[in-house]
């Protein structure tokens, strides 16, 4: 009631003319100037939709529920299996890809190259010409990994006979999956599909996967959250830097591997492969993040983002309270640092499911833990801390499991809130690799990018219509 205001000291939040705040202070009052700009770059309908959602009790309650589900998730690496047997609703002539849905003819170069490689790997065609005809012929179904409880970096291609990691969220008894990381250079996820690539995939299927599977069986599973938390204390942000996490994983596996029936040469080859790939853990980090966010998916009214993913053409997000729907915008070109001989002109637009890590509060959101990463944009360690602090303004809470030493062991900001993104104009930060726009060239750089605002403005409008009824 207004008369209680009369008993308090007046504290003014000033939106608009800065001189009003100045004169309040001059007259002995207290005022804070808001650095206001028209929300959603001046889209009035979005501004109004947002105004209906800000601090709305039903949305706040839904977000608490969604965030608790996310936080209580316990992803455990449980098994390794074959995609066609493990993934829900995986068809026999289906190929999964990174990002939101996209038709063959619209796919970017690296994704097309990866799909051709997968067709060759499956033996559905003899050469790339045959594979191209098959892919264009409509005989093969293309669907996002995300539609099958899975995630894959870059092209994110998973075909029926590929081995997959199976992670189980034991708190909610829900599985999630990812493919295997092939290392750097000529690899399928960047669209390479030559004989070396296919041979490596076969080796992963026939040797690496069964060997590691036996080790995991002996261990009974590996609890992924503590491992990721430890890696965050060792300079990883478990998206673009996984050297610590990969080492920790290997440390857990080695003794178990030695206890299996696997042959010494196989164990040696497996250990050598994992040890030689600093990004080996990335796919597990992604599957763990997918598990945590799937736990939070589908809470009616919640404005929490449960997926951010890119297919090299479009950037898409999903929101807990909006079900399976994707909100998409053109994928940005990442402005980062490039390997010798490459420039931004060679880059494919942002690609892959790996932004699931940022969605789960690690990656760019935990950058304070990984100051080395900030060098991608020529920054200093303080910039890493600033980035993490900025993300705290657009998130629902902090993940207690993921503490950040440079932030005085505060939890990493997590649970992106579409309302806060649109209200502040602060866009989620993503650490990412950069693929060449042509198939098979591979990674040409890495950098830091931002999720496009348009995904969030559409989601805000849609959520307001659902929660409040259309106005």
């Amino acid at each position, binding site marked *: *009631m*207004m*008369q209680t*205001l*009369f008993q*308090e*000291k*007046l*504290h*003014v*939040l*000033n*939106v*608009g003319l800065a*001189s*009003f*705040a100045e*004169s*309040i202070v*001059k*007259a*002995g*009052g207290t*005022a*804070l*100037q*808001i*650095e*206001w*700009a*028209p*929300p959603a770059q001046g889209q*009035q309908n979005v*501004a*109004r939709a947002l*105004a209906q959602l*800000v*601090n*709305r009790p039903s949305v706040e309650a839904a977000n608490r529920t969604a965030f608790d589900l996310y936080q209580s998730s316990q992803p455990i690496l449980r098994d390794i299996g074959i995609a066609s047997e493990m993934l829900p609703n995986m068809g026999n002539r289906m190929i999964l890809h990174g990002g939101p849905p996209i038709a063959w003819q619209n796919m970017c170069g690296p994704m097309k190259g990866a799909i051709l490689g997968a067709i060759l790997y499956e033996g559905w065609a003899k050469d790339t010409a045959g594979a191209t005809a098959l892919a264009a012929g409509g005989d093969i179904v293309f669907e996002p990994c995300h539609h099958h409880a899975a995630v894959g970096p870059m092209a994110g291609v998973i075909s029926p006979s590929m081995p997959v990691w199976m992670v189980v969220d034991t708190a909610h008894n829900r599985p999630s999956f990812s493919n295997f990381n092939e290392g750097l250079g000529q690899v399928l996820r960047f669209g390479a599909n030559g004989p070396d690539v296919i041979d490596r995939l076969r080796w992963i299927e026939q040797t690496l996967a069964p060997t590691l599977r036996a080790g995991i069986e002996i261990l009974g599973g590996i609890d992924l959250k503590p491992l990721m938390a430890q890696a965050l204390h060792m300079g990883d942000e478990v998206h673009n830097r996984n050297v610590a996490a990969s080492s920790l994983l290997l440390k857990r596996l080695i003794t178990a591997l030695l206890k299996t029936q696997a042959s010494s040469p196989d164990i040696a080859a497996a250990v050598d492969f994992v040890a030689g790939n600093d990004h080996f853990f990335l796919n597990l980090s992604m599957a763990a993040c997918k598990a945590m966010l799937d736990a939070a998916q589908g809470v009616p009214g919640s404005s929490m983002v449960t997926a951010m993913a890119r297919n090299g053409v479009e950037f898409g997000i999903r929101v807990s309270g909006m079900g399976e729907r994707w909100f998409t915008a053109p994928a940005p070109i990442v402005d980062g*640092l*490039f*390997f*010798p*001989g490459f420039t931004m002109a060679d880059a494919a637009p942002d690609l892959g499911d790996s932004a699931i890590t940022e969605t789960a509060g690690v990656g760019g959101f935990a950058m304070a833990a990984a100051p*080395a*990463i900030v060098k*991608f944009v*020529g*920054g*200093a360690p*303080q*910039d890493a801390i*600033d980035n993490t*602090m900025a993300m705290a*303004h657009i998130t629902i809470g902090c993940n207690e499991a993921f503490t950040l030493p440079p932030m005085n062991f505060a939890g990493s900001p997590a649970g992106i809130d579409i309302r*806060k993104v649109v*209200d*502040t104009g*602060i866009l989620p930060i993503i650490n990412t690799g950069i693929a060449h726009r042509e198939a098979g060239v591979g990674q040409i750089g*890495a950098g830091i990018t931002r999720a496009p605002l348009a995904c969030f403005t559409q989601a805000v409008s849609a959520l307001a219509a659902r929660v409040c009824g259309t106005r």
Partner: protein
Amino acid sequence: MARATKVIRNFYHDSVSLMQLSSMFAQLPGVEQAAAIMASANNINLLKEAGLVAGTVEAGANDLLIALQGSAEALDAALAAAESTLKQSASTAGQGTSRTIAPRSLEMGLANMVEGNLAVISTPGEYAAAEAFKALRLGLHVMLFSDNVQLQDEIALKQFARDRDLIVMGPECGTAVINGVPLAFANVVTRGTIGVVAASGTGLQQVICLIDRWGQGISQAIGTGSHDLHRAVGGISMLQGLKALAADRSTSVIVLISKPPDSEVAEHVLEAAGKAGKPVVVNFLGADPARIRRPNVFPADTLEDAAKAAVALAEGRPPDPAQPAGFLHAVPFTCTPGQRYIRGLYSGGTFCYEASLLLKKNVGRIYSNTPVEPADRLHDGWTSREHTVIDLGDDRFTRGRPHPMIDHRLRNERILKEAADPQVAVIVLDIVLGYGSHPDPAGELAPVLHQATGLARKAGRQLAVIGFVCGTASDPQGLSTQEDTLRGAGMILAESNAQAVRMAAAVVAGQTGMSS
């Protein structure tokens, strides 16, 4: 195109920092392409493919290799620069500085100022309703300065606020004083026991300044926005303000101010005023006092009367409606026969409206851009006709330029134009002080007044310029300094708009008497 390489032995850098260095070296003068890598066989092959290295390089995986391609004469200097960059100490390498982000939304602001209890919103009108809704949802009272807010939004905002025990002051609320803090265009007044609720910004300023001038003070001054007493809005904010002041122990007298309200809404407000449990002075401009008067509710004809009544009640005296409504001292002035008309040039809309009302009673038909009677509308606001009062704060005059309380140019031009008119006897001006107004309005006006009276004198006329300063001794501009300057420039000063208008009427009446 030339190439150059440099090997630095046993100088390990991780690949990320090397990528950063590579891009830095590529920016050096005369350099086309650059790479800094650990010189493993693989990496050297990469550089060969990129055309940066030709032939063999004697280096190993623990050695750092710098390879540059560019114009021959620039490469030596570039290599040297690159090497010195590599070897600079950590303390001189780029230092980051922590940037806490300034709050970009009300919610973010509230995280920084958890005690926040009022949002003052002055964004462009098309975004203002959305910001106000956010503020209310965050539990903040709202002062909505913005204009161009749709009526349906105003109604929705006020109903939403009322349901949550919050108030929306506005839209188009230009002024308020809450807990002694002047907000937006407001005067610095002494705190006291008189509470004001006003649907008119300058009306509010006039009343609180006169109360201050006459030795009493203000507990709270609440603006409601000028549409609050429309039928569709129903006086929601005025009723809330009235209720809050009625319950406020620091308030002994309440003043309500509005331009003519909807009659049903007015009755509703007056009924509530009668139950306030403390005296309520009501100035609904142009209303019939008989319809207002009831136990504990006192009608006031003018803003000045309202202030006077409130001061009397606060001092335990009865309000004195019997006091003669005349001017307090004679105006020493002689008109030439042709000088017949009054021209009021106002920056405050309510002053202009009040002038119309008072002059209509005393001198007859008054033309205006904001007339009391629709028939008296001035078709061309830029040109006066007979008795004319102009609200220069009207949209038509403020389009593309600041409000006349801030920017005096338009009014200054108009003063000279009126002074040149041989039929003009009196010019009436308001001078509004306080935060948000011009830092020295008297200083702006004085030379123009000299010029105007000089112009008339040259033409053989005497021109009366009557004005009043709406301000207080504590205002940043200072009441007495401003009055001294104006008096020095020949202005005849009144204390209030009502007094100024009555003086003007007397001048014209005297003139009429002479010529008839």
